[in-house]
């Protein structure tokens, strides 16, 4: 599904990632940990074609990312839902319209009107906030709205970059439960986080593979997690 093979990424003369090999199989659950600045976000961006590797190969749904043009990358992103810690919305549109944005840009906005949107908004607990503008949302609400936007196209993969970074414990548990539910529906989930308690809480519910970035490389985390 998403495969990185001996990938390196350099920026500004320095190598951020080196010799990374990673395979996200369908239905798998992964955590990516490591200290701030280790390259978690960079690795996530490599996984959805926002960055191109400086060495090695990245294959997205079977296609070499270097052979994809910008339109191909756009099509890949319709199969990959992304949630960032610093989530961005179109502030002039309401929450429901922002959630529907992936459908809108792919010409499938009619699908939002058949009750699925209501169900999705209810699933993330934002039914009452559907008409609000993004600046009016709390941190937790923004993260849940971002998750709803990420999954409305029923993507094969969900990538969440520090999704609980700006929210309290209770809200992060709620968000985590949603991500676990998605995985149980067969979606591949990759969460970048430095919050070890989040990983421990997840491992009680699903079999998650924990990867750690250290010294520019990815390694399987030890049993201490």
């Amino acid at each position: 599904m998403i495969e990185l093979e001996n990938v390196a990424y350099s920026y500004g003369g320095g190598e951020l990632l080196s010799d990374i090999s990673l395979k996200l199989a369908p239905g798998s659950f992964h955590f990516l940990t490591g200290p701030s600045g280790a390259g978690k976000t960079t690795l996530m961006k490599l996984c959805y074609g926002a960055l191109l590797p400086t060495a090695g190969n990245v294959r997205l749904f079977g296609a070499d990312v270097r052979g994809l043009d910008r339109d191909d990358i756009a099509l890949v992103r319709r199969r990959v839902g992304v949630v960032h810690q610093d989530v961005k919305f179109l502030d002039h549109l309401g929450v429901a319209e922002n959630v529907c944005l992936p459908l809108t840009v792919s010409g499938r906005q009619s699908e939002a009107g058949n009750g699925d949107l209501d169900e999705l908004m209810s699933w993330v607990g934002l039914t009452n906030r559907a008409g609000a503008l993004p600046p009016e949302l709390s941190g937790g609400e923004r993260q849940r709205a971002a998750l709803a936007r990420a999954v409305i196209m029923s993507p094969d993969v969900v990538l969440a970059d520090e999704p609980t970074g700006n929210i309290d414990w209770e809200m992060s548990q709620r968000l985590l439960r949603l991500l676990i539910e998605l995985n149980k529906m067969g979606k591949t989930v990759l969460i970048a986080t430095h919050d070890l308690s989040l990983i421990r809480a997840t491992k009680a519910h699903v079999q998650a593979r924990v990867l750690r970035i250290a010294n520019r490389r990815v390694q399987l985390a030890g049993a201490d997690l």
Partner: protein
Amino acid sequence: MKFLRGLIAGDRQADRVVPPSGFTAQLTLFAAAAMAFLAVFALALSLAAGRLADRWGDELARSATLRIVAPLDQRQAQTDAALRILETTKGVASARALTDADQQALLEPWFGPDLALDSLPVPRLIEVIEDDQGMDAAGLRLRLAAEVPGAVLDDHSRWRKPLIDAAGRLRMLGWISTLLIAATVAAMITLAAQAALAANAQVIAVLRLVGATDDYIAQAFVRRFTLRALSGAAVGTVVGLIAMVLMPDAADAPGFLTGLGYQGAHWIFPLLIPILAGAVAFAATGTAARRTLRELA
């Protein structure tokens, strides 16, 4: 083609993804209207100059004036002799001596209506119209010199050419002005579109994150700027045409400036200005959008 269809048909949702821009939008509308207003006049200037050049070219090239400068007691005899010569001259379609009333009407703007022609040594004028083959002016002059000593033939060539050249240059000036206006519209729309794209870098990032293609993003901007240019230019054209209609009637005061307007089928040309402005905006915004999206990638 799909892009163009999408542009015309529109997409309410796609239109909403780009935030409204308020003051910039009004400036674009105003600039497009002002340029269209100027284009109406530039086009009118060009078309009027063209008509003038054609008229001078056609009418003056096929006409000549014979002036009989003779003492009063010989003037009629020489006029008759000149008319006889003209009747037998190859290439002359018709020749007519102006009557006293005609000449009085010609002189009226300078001397008033009460001029007594008999008291002045005013030459008799003969209007000569050539046929399609044209006459041999040099041969006619030789014949007139022998038989009508007071005759002076003026075939207008001395001042016709510079007039036609001037009208031609005026026409070219009009077209150059129209082209410059179109180029200015393109430059203005390009700048406005680039500013809008740069100001909406975050919007573009969000759209890309959720899978929008460059065509989709570009179309949202292109449609907006094309419609602005189209509607602004439509307003400017209507105002320009109203101003044209309100100009003094050519029949009341003959002259080049009063003839500055549209005639017959030429009224179609100003109606094309909004469409051309839309097309220019479409091309300019499309180019600017693709360049900016490439740079932001």
